[in-house]
């Protein structure tokens, strides 16, 4: 190697990129020394509890708070009228979702209630228990209104309109018609179709939504301790709706006990907490308990999809035609809107494939249930399940192997960059390589042989595939262009400390996925310091660069690139200073393992601790024209494409007990391409966790509502999430196709597991039940549904 050729910043002698390193914050967490919001106790703090609507749709005739106010320990009782002067309502629409509409939403019921669990009145008291005692003593007279619960009839002429000012119950309507769908179906060798029911479910982060609002009357400042994914967005929204100067609102987000998209939205009870803090002038804590979490945390994925696909005789997908209707509750959630999920479904269905003709008609309707909005995977699990089930149906009809049908239908490798019929632009994907690798690691041929033999013994096993694309690294086209103040750019500031270590602050946030670790790896690599000399700070709007936070699988791709560029910039400054001190040419120096070294020989010239000492304390020894600049900030906005798509191939292996309807998950495999892998272990663990969060709704999770709009299973005893015993080991492997949109080349990985799992398990179950001629498409696949499908119940 030419000694003058600098190694790539990612392929340095001391690179941490691509290596598994432990997470620096994990030690604290295993000792129980994390700081979640509920662990924080401030002087004079009061605790909130809410009276919540028992009805899905009702007029609030009167609210009697007298007895509640009389409960000893109560500091205040608040209805909408009590907080109206300090807070303004919000409306969840975005300009670029054409025609989307929603009603004004208030933090507490403003004359009517629109879902069971909507906050009507709040009690602030010396303890949560006392607040709950008093909330029980709030007496509300309701006049019940007809609840609108069935999304399939929400637009029928005889269905009441939930918000009369909107004219109808339609929130958003999106139509795509691309290519010549009718001709494709007319010419097809095989046409398949099915109707899919996707079950409303929710994120269930272990730490419920939590907030402390600390308003200082003296300073006119509001400090929010929040469990949140996007501190700057929250800062903006609390300032805006409480009429505060944005600079006087600070969001501090320490440890977050899971979020999964649940903690990126505006919640009425949290906004009410802010208003009450302003009124009381003392800290107000609200920790949603698990029962109120179920009726207020956003739900997701309540969809009915009718879809059909056309194939030629060679098993190539020619066209997809689908209708999707989704019920999102009574409001489009602010500020991201509840139109995005449907938008993703229609944008992404059939995403891996080359079909030229595509038609989709998607309707988002209002109903009197809890709101739905973005949750891990946003739309992907639906799009992937629909598309991949159609591929399996096509394979079955044509007598082909499902792997072959996928291979025959993938976008050809030489066609990238490729514009899909829905208008999505793919930079480059590796569907073929992922599926080939997957088929290899799972021993597909062996599994098929075993499957055939076992069927003879009345053991029914099935194999299901899912190829998928995932939206990551969003550009400003996602929210910013629609008018939401949600940053798509992110920044990183890195400072060389006098000790020779570095401190990085970043706008992306940590929820346990490992953001702080990968930022540390990138910063250590870019600057040239040992990993244990890096400290990463996140989650405090007073400290970190303005940024979007964590959503849409953007932490590594966007935040990581900003860290890389900041690290490079700092290193350049360090080398310039070192050159002045050492009287060497900058291009002869490098920074490695915490030292200035000779770039050619690697010989140490000066440790960074010495350079730091000179820069900070002995500036007198420097040449007059040299001013050390040992802090560098860089930002990154991905602008080249609306999104950078990742891709993956999943396979699931199940055994269905056809007597009891129980599905046993035997194996699961994923080959994932998230571009540059920064930390293989963290990528694998994001994938595994994501897969299990996709297996949950495929087998267990659903928010069951009565026709009156009552949530029937709103506790962890009745809402089943995956537990250890039923989950399989998950083999994860990688293909690396770095994105060219950034120097780092990383794409996101947080959601792909969740995106693919429901499809893979659905296809596996249907493969297992193939001998019975049974096809199931109504999630979750409960024993009851399986026995009914088999005619045994």
């Amino acid at each position, binding site marked *: 190697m030419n000694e003058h050729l600098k190694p790539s910043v990612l392929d340095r002698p001391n690179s941490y990129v691509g290596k598994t390193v432990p997470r620096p914050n994990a030690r604290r967490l295993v000792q129980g020394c994390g700081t979640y919001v509920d662990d924080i106790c401030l002087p004079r703090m009061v605790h909130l509890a809410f009276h919540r609507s028992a009805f899905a749709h009702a007029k609030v005739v009167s609210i009697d708070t007298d007895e509640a106010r009389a409960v000893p320990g109560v500091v205040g009782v608040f209805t909408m009228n009590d907080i109206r002067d300090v807070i303004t309502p919000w409306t969840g629409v975005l300009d670029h979702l054409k025609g989307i509409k929603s009603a004004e939403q208030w933090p507490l019921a403003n004359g009517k209630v629109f879902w069971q669990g909507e906050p009507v009145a709040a009690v602030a008291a010396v303890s949560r228990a006392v607040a709950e005692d008093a909330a029980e003593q709030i007496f509300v007279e309701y006049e019940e209104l007809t609840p609108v619960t069935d999304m399939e009839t929400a637009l029928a002429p005889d269905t009441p309109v939930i918000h009369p000012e909107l004219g109808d119950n339609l929130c958003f309507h999106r139509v795509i018609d691309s290519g010549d769908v009718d001709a494709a179906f007319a010419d097809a060798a095989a046409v398949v179709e099915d109707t899919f029911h996707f079950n409303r479910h929710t994120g269930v982060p272990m730490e419920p939504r939590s907030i402390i609002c600390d308003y200082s009357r003296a300073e006119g400042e509001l400090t929010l301790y929040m469990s949140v994914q996007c501190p700057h967005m929250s800062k903006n929204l609390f300032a805006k709706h409480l009429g505060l100067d944005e600079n006087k609102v600070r969001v501090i987000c320490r440890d977050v006990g899971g979020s999964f998209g649940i903690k990126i939205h505006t919640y009425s009870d949290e906004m009410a907490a802010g208003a009450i803090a302003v009124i009381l002038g003392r800290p107000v804590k609200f920790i949603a308990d698990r029962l109120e979490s179920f009726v207020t945390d956003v739900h997701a994925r309540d969809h009915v999809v009718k879809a059909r696909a056309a194939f030629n005789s060679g098993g190539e997908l020619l066209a997809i035609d689908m209708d999707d209707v989704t019920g999102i509750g009574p409001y489009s959630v602010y500020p991201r809107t509840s139109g995005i999920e449907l938008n993703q479904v229609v944008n992404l269905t059939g995403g891996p494939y080359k079909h030229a003709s595509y038609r989709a008609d998607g309707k988002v309707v209002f109903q009197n249930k809890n709101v739905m909005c973005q949750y891990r995977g946003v739309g992907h699990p639906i799009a992937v399940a629909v598309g991949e089930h159609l591929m399996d149906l096509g394979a079955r009809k044509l007598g082909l192997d499902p792997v072959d049908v996928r291979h025959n239908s993938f976008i050809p490798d030489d066609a990238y960059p490729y514009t899909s019929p829905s208008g999505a632009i793919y930079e480059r994907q590796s569907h073929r390589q992922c599926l080939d690798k997957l088929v290899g690691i799972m021993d597909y041929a062996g599994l098929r042989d075993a499957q055939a033999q076992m069927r003879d013994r009345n053991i029914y096993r099935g194999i299901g595939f899912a190829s998928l694309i995932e939206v990551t690294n969003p550009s400003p086209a996602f929210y910013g262009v629609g008018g939401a103040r949600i940053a798509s750019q992110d920044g990183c500031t890195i400072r060389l400390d006098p000790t020779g270590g570095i401190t990085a602050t970043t706008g992306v946030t940590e929820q346990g996925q490992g953001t702080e670790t990968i930022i540390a790896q990138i910063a250590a690599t870019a600057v040239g310091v040992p990993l244990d000399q890096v400290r990463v700070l996140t989650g405090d709007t007073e400290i970190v660069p303005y940024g979007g936070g964590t959503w849409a699988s953007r932490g590594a791709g966007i935040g990581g690139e900003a860290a890389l560029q900041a690290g490079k910039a700092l290193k350049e400054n360090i080398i310039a200073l070192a050159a002045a001190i050492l009287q060497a040419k900058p291009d002869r120096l490098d920074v490695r393992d915490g030292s200035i070294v000779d770039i050619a020989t690697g010989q140490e010239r000066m440790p960074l601790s010495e350079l730091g000492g000179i820069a900070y304390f002995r500036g007198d020894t420097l040449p007059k024209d040299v001013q050390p600049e040992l802090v560098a900030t860089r930002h990154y906005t991905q602008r080249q494409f609306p999104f950078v798509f990742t891709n993956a191939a999943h396979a699931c292996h199940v055994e269905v007990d056809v007597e009891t309807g129980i599905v046993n998950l035997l194996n699961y495999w994923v080959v994932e391409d998230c571009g540059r892998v920064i930390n293989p272990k963290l990528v694998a663990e994001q994938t595994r966790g994501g897969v299990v969060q996709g297996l949950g709704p495929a087998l267990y999770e659903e928010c069951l509502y009565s026709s009156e709009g009552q949530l029937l299973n709103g506790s962890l005893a009745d809402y089943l999430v995956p537990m250890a015993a039923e989950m399989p080991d998950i083999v994860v492997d990688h293909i690396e196709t770095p994105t060219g949109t950034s120097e780092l080349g990383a794409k996101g990985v947080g959601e792909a597991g969740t995106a693919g799992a429901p499809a893979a398990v659905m296809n596996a179950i249907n493969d297992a039940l193939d001998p019975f001629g049974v096809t199931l498409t109504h999630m979750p696949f409960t024993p009851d549904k399986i*026995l009914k499908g088999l005619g045994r119940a």
Partner: protein
Amino acid sequence: MKPTAFEYVRAGSLDEVLTVLEERGDEAKVLAGGQSLIPTMNMRFAAPEVLIDISGVTELRGIEVRDDVLRIGAMCRHVEVLNAPEVAEHAPLIAMAMPNIAHAAIRNRGTFGGSLCHADPAAELPACVLALDARLNIDGKSGPRSISARDFFLGTYMTCLADDEVLISVDVPKVMSENVTFFDEVARRRGDYAMAGLASQATVRSGFITDVRLAFFAVGEVAVRAPHAEQALQGILLQDMDADAICSAIADDISPFDDLTTSGAAKLTMMQVLTRRAVESFAKQGAHA
């Protein structure tokens, strides 16, 4: 999600329990392990004015082998029953059921008597004592009494215990060498309440089955026996068993209700599958006997 305020009495003796129960009647609730009562109170579905903690009452503790019965104290925690060699030896059905009850941390606190008195229709132990024809020993202000498990359970969360009575212990007839036992349940996840479950014991002599007890749980308001199916099995040679006839007898016995996610029809199918598996297991156990 905090309970309403209540008084707490830690009883030092059975007398004290009975005295407080007599004084406070239905305002009081007995607190054993609390693993069902406390969540109900946290959700404010129950708000007793006084809790009587019986964990310190020695008369309620211990597992004792008597002449022909195994006596299990009401306050025995599930983990004690699970680990007791006497239970494994003399009441294998209960030993088989124990690991299916919730999870380890719950079994460490929850009690044998508490589970019976809670009378959850989906709980395992009521079905076990029903299948074993156990007797429940009760005490109260009107004096002690003993009642058959068949008469103890009245409905969902309802037993024949009067407000002023407390369950002391349970006498389980010791298993005989010719007894065969079967316990299984169909649950969606490990440790969940079952969709359908079966606790069963019978006698097998020379391949013939008699004294069959089929006690199903999670299929009705209380754990329930299936008399027609038991009758259909009575005295038959196991290898000649007509599974279809027994399955249709179960349908005559019980019409399971729908729960949130499982229809009665699916539960019936599961009950029939469990019964067939039980009889197959009996045949195997009988062959080894």
